């Protein structure tokens, strides 16, 4: 019985933390957040040098051949540093789809370039209903010629589309609302008649886009995996996405608490550090008592994705729901512990506070996931 990170995973975390402490300082994060494009090519290049884009990709294709728990370790550090980089969208979500759905030829064509960071990908699957079940996928894949598909419609909440070289788009090859008939199409970002519109959110550290397809032509050979049989890949990707967001939230919550405690130890009022007042101590203690068990829940959910498939979905929803609430509550308390300056743009804490909320709301709110947990528990 050994529940926890391996020594290698601990080392991975330490190295990631050190790297990000240098490359993704709060000042750097703020600069990128305030930048119109919202990413730094230099930072993305340095991250690629770490090998992280290939973390999940088998060594045979130039990747690190690691698992979801290892990805969660990196995501926790990225969430802690609030790094604006496409690791979640490309290195985890799009890569998971590739690994799950791609043919052998597609793996050879794409995986090495994804692993090296030469190519970045993202996933376009949600539409205006923001449904996470097959009925949410309506964008029709019209057969124009025997070798061509044409797309007209829109996708929402496409993460990091502005840096992605290719989008994996979820479409309907056959009419219906069920899983049967859902396909995945690889669409290069520079395909004609594909338009990106920024969807600015209160969280400027991660960018989301609306992608409009105005009769976009895509070769049939760009189908990722079997036509009409792609839902199961998306379903798996969704569970991985829940764990990935939860991992970011775990790191962010830890950092938000740290910042608040550091501040409370030095800020003085009434002749003493405000951290010596019980009310403030109890806020900190409650946050700590939240984030210790949530980390164990996260580790289980990450590990279960590959090790306990029967419990993967339930565990993913538990982690997503819990970390969504925990990070938001911890960040809220952290802002309050900073007093008035916590409310300013100039102080850093609001960046974590906003990421907490957007993480809570994305890929299913805690309320949505709690119902999923109830269903998957057989209630």
């Amino acid at each position, binding site marked *: *019985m*050994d*529940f*926890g*990170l*391996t020594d*290698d995973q601990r*080392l*991975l975390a330490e*190295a990631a933390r050190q790297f990000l402490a240098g490359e993704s300082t709060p000042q750097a994060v703020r600069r990128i957040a305030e930048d119109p494009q919202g990413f730094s090519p230099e930072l993305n290049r340095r991250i690629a040098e*770490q*090998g992280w884009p290939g973390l999940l990709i088998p*060594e045979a294709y130039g990747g*690190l*051949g*690691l*698992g979801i*728990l*290892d990805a969660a370790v990196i995501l926790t550090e990225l969430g802690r540093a609030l790094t604006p980089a496409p690791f979640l969208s490309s290195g985890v979500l799009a890569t998971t789809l590739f690994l799950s759905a791609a043919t052998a030829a597609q793996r050879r064509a794409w995986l090495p370039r994804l692993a090296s960071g030469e190519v970045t990908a993202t996933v376009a699957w949600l539409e205006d209903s923001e449904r996470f079940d097959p009925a949410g996928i309506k964008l029709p894949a019209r057969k124009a010629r025997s070798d061509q598909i044409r797309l007209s419609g829109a996708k929402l909440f496409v993460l990091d589309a502005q840096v992605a070289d290719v989008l994996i788009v979820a479409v309907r090859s056959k009419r219906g609302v069920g899983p049967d008939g859902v396909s995945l199409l690889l669409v290069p970002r520079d395909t004609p008649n594909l338009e990106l519109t920024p969807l600015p959110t209160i969280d400027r550290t991660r960018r989301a886009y609306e992608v409009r397809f105005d009769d976009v032509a895509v070769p049939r050979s760009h189908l990722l995996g079997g036509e009409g049989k792609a839902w199961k890949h998306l379903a798996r990707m969704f569970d991985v996405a829940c764990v990935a967001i939860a991992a970011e939230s775990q790191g962010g919550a830890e950092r938000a*608490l740290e910042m608040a*405690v550091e501040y*409370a*130890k030095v800020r003085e009022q009434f002749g*003493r*550090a405000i*951290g*010596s*007042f*019980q009310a*403030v*101590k*109890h806020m*900190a*203690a*409650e946050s*700590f*008592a939240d984030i*210790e*068990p*949530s980390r*164990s*829940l996260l*580790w*289980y959910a990450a*590990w279960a994705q*590959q*090790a306990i498939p029967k419990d993967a979905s339930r565990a993913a929803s*538990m982690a997503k*729901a*819990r970390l969504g609430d925990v990070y938001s509550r911890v960040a809220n308390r952290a802002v309050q512990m900073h007093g008035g300056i916590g409310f300013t743009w100039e102080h850093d804490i609001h960046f974590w506070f906003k990421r907490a909320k957007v993480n809570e709301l994305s890929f299913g709110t805690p*309320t949505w996931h*709690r*119902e999923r*947990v*109830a269903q998957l*528990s057989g*209630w």
Partner: protein
Amino acid sequence: MTGRRLPGDTARMDLSFSKEDEAYRQEVRAWLRKNLPKRETDAEGGELTLDDPRRIANAKAWQRKMYDAGYVATGWPEEYGGHGASILRQSILNEELVLAKAPTLIGMMGIQMLGPTLIRTGTDEQRKRFLPKILTAEELWCQGYSEPGSGSDLASLKTRAELDGDFFVVNGQKVWTSTAQFADWMFCLVRTDPSAPKHKGISYLLIDMKSPGITVRPLVQMTGQAGFNEVFFDNVRVPRKNLVGNLNEGWIVANSTLSFERNMLASTTRTQQLMSDLVRLAGRRTRNGGKALKDPVVRQRLAELEIQVEAMKFHSWKQLSDGIHGRSPGIGASINKLVTTELNHAICAAALDVLGGYGGLAKGAPHVEDRGVWPIDWMFTLGMIIGGGTSQIQKNIIAERGLGMPRSA
């Protein structure tokens, strides 16, 4: 760090038990199935009161039976009557006992609290005299710590012990003393040097409850049970050799006992059991014409509890692994106590919500559900939040020792 990995390393997280440990679990389970005592009930089908002589006799017999089978104090060193069992084996045994709803051992105070203290700090004579009878429940122990004026601020205690030749003469009062009404002995914190700073003038004494000058007065809890007592000391003479550890060093001895108590109070298996009882209840009860368990609001509330219960389950696995592999527990005991006791109370509160008006019915009332256990457990779990270090004290400890925040003025 890039590319330097052994294949299969990612699967190192290991939730399996060895064949031998699994076999042990099955052996315990089978033994319990065969030997668990029948619940003896009163006229209304409820539990016997704590000081009912039948209950005490049954409980002692049960502990004796468990001891003979090798299931008492398995973690104690073999030379003192234990089995030197690993943390993992002890956990497996504890889990199976909870799952089988086995009665808590009546000698738990001695086994979990005093025994390990004597093993660590007692004299050989004390160990020989007291340890065997702790194991067989031949002698039962209670804890004399809190006083009317010293609860959270335990170190301010005032029960005085003055040396008179070979005896301490004890005067004062203890409160919240669970099981004092039938305990044979008490391990007691007393003030032996009133002039020293409060933590440095305390001693740890073993007191025979049959000593002249001791009066025990039961205190009734809001549950209606006389679950604890006041104990008065009027010139009670205690042999000097009943001092554990050095004179005026009792606070150090007591602190080790307190951390055992925090772990004892927080059993995640019990929480899981309460949760599954709640789910079963919601599956039986109705709301607006349908099963309560199908009501969306009930599902939200129960799912939230279920998620927190599962998180604590995984967290207990992590802490167990840390213990097995020699990693520091940090502030874990305080977090467990804080979170688990509040979770237990929240589960009971949710059950009362599911029961609606039936939730207030007392044991014996017509139409009562689950023998009226839910409102009683709802009250009892509030007592558990307060006892063993209140939630507010746990938060102070977490903030100070876990986060390094300054002590309050």
